[in-house]
């Protein structure tokens, strides 16, 4: 750096000030647009503050917390069996999947393992909730982009899956079915045949959506090349789930982790896409529904006999210790860090939910896009408000 004399420095400052004044005079005024908290594209109450120049976004930031329900604190005053009733309200579209990692964490601390049949049924219900969750995403995607019809197909076919979940657990949205050491009940009679036929319907639904939406040229021109997340950026922001796989990272906790679940007993593929744009994210999710239906079909055929509950004491006390268990939930990696001090309830639970990390990339991603693309990008990132705010 060169040293400047006083006079030179003054002249430099004066010229800078003059430039600044000119810039101020020429600058057009931007517009701050609050997208949300109440907005059809935010699936709840997410607020996105966007600074616009015309229709171009100069700067955007998500402002979460409008739906914070304090689940981490609430778990500290609940017993372990009671916590599942809370946590399946985090991602309300795939609620059974929320219970599993917590139960697995508690089981890990207690040194209990669920019987093989319970592991199978857990995996089946886990995948069913993934199908229910992501099929609704596929329909909703159409609405966000202006096509009103797909969402009704999605609601129609998701209803079959919800009926299955209700038949097995008694709850459509909030099953509260997972127990430490196994499951509350066995599957009901007729569940297996019914599920096979529903999985066939869901595969039809995927074909329908692929023809109606993904093959549409307008849809492709709206999503291809929009909101591109390169591989390294995706990793830096801690994305997970389909958002990460759509950026070409071959990472799936169902395959990569050795959990007491039945995923490794089925034959399925991890879907990735090299592009990292909105289209890739939607496409990966569509293919994952297909893979999930395959997993469910195979696991139903190889369902082992036996009890669905291991031997656990009536009053559950978890020994002192700490454990972190995460699974590949519909929205991405979901994990619970459970700290126990030997009581009936956890001392502290840290919930790592997928959507909170996934939307952290929003400020980076929205810079320079147009207002309609905000909606495309938010829709393709796919978050659930309960999963952000907990």
């Amino acid at each position, binding site marked *: 750096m060169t040293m400047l004399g006083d006079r030179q420095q003054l002249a430099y400052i004066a010229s800078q000030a003059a430039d600044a004044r000119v810039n101020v005079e020429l600058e057009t005024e931007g517009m701050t647009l609050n997208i949300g908290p109440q907005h*059809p*594209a935010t699936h709840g109450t997410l607020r996105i503050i966007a600074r616009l120049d015309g229709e171009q976004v100069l700067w955007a930031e998500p402002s979460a917390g409008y739906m914070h329900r304090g689940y981490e604190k609430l778990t500290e005053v609940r017993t372990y069996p009671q916590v599942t009733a809370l946590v399946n309200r985090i991602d309300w579209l795939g609620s059974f999947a929320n219970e599993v990692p917590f139960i697995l964490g508690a089981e890990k601390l207690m040194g209990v393992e669920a019987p093989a049949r319970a592991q199978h049924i857990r995996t089946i219900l886990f995948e069913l909730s993934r199908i229910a969750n992501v099929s609704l995403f596929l329909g909703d995607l159409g609405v966000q*982009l*202006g*096509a*009103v*019809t797909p969402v009704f197909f999605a609601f129609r076919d998701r209803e079959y899956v919800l009926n299955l979940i209700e038949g097995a657990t008694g709850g459509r949205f909030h099953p509260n079915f997972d127990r430490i050491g196994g499951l509350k009940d066995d599957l009901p009679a007729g569940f297996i045949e019914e599920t096979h036929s529903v999985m066939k319907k869901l595969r039809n639904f995927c074909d329908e959506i692929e023809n109606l*939406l993904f093959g*549409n040229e307008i849809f492709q021109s*709206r999503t291809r090349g929009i909101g591109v997340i390169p591989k390294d950026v995706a990793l830096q922001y801690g994305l997970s789930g389909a958002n990460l796989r759509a950026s070409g990272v071959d990472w799936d906790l169902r395959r990569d982790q050795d959990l007491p679940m039945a995923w490794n007993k089925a034959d399925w593929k991890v879907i990735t896409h090299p592009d990292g744009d909105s289209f890739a994210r939607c496409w990966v999710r569509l293919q994952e529904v297909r893979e999930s239906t395959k997993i469910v079909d195979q696991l139903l055929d190889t369902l082992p006999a036996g009890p669905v509950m291991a031997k656990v004491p009536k009053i559950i006390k978890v020994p002192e210790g700490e454990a972190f268990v995460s699974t590949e939930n519909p929205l991405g990696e979901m994990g619970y860090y459970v700290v126990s001090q030997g009581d009936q309830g956890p001392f502290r639970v840290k919930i790592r939910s997928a959507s909170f990390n996934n939307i952290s990339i929003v400020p980076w991603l929205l810079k320079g896009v147009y207002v309609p693309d905000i909606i495309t990008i938010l829709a393709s990132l796919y978050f659930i408000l309960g999963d952000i705010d907990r």
Partner: protein
Amino acid sequence: MLAALLSEIPYWGQSLLRVLGGLVAVLLPAGTVVYLFLFKMMSFMQSRLGPMEAGPYGSMQLFAEVGKWLQKEDIVPDAAAPEARIFKLAPLIVLASTFLLVVVVPFGPDALFTNFETGIFYALAVSSVSVLGILIAGWSSANKYSLLGGLRAAGQLVAYELPMVLAVVGVVIQAGTMNLQQIVVAQNTGSIFGFDGVGNPYVITQFVAFIVFMIAVQAELTQTPFDMPIAESELVSGYMTEYSGFRFLIFFIGEFATAGVFSMIASILFLGGWGVPFSWFGWTTIDSIDNWMNVGGPLILFTKMLVLVFFIMWIRFSFPRFREDQLQRFAWKGLIPIALANIMLTAVLKVAF
């Protein structure tokens, strides 16, 4: 004939008849389109039933909806209060454009409001009056979403006015007149290489113009895939966000009545309008047409209109929407060159034959 009969009625009576006729010609298509397509066809496409409770198959649903809207409070947002008069005027301007449009539509040999020599020119001119209403609505709502919607609407409607005009030019060249009544007559008395069994509907010779015109109509009506100005999922209904009750109803009627009236104009330009091929009944000129066509003509026109609106709505319910820049590119780089080429071809062929 009917014209002679009409001239015996005093002037105020004629005016009253015209006003009543105009109301019927605007509200009847709007009601039919909303019930048949928005309520029923959309529901059947989406594997549901639609309204079923009000009247047989929900046919009275529309009256229930109108009743509901009339009961609602006429809200003016606080921020829009200084411009309340303009805010309240906007929907009326949009609807007025529809009424101005229906003035030139011929429904039968004598069943028409006015017989303009430059009918189609007038129609294209007044159809853009609605842009003013939409801009006013977007601006005076004092809402950022409405403002974006209004500006998008202005850009879009101006861009799609051009392909529409250019598409019509082909028809005007072929018919040799701008008078809508004479365009109808020219199609129904025409013949294709000497065969006059179906007349000469211009949808055959001007097929390219027909497609361009219908796409432009889709955009003028701001129906999906050109519904950027409304865009429920982005702009929360755009320029209509702040309107409630009766004024929203007027926007709503305006949207579907304009769909009906534009489809009528399209069927007059391309499908032979109210007429049947004159050779079927041995008519030669417009004066020799039997009187019953003044009743039959409107029904024929209405049927053709419903067919065209069916296609508009079909596309509306199955397509996602364009982005603003893609939409402009489509108009300027796609439709306008095609329409211009069509004009050149038509002019060359017109001179050659």
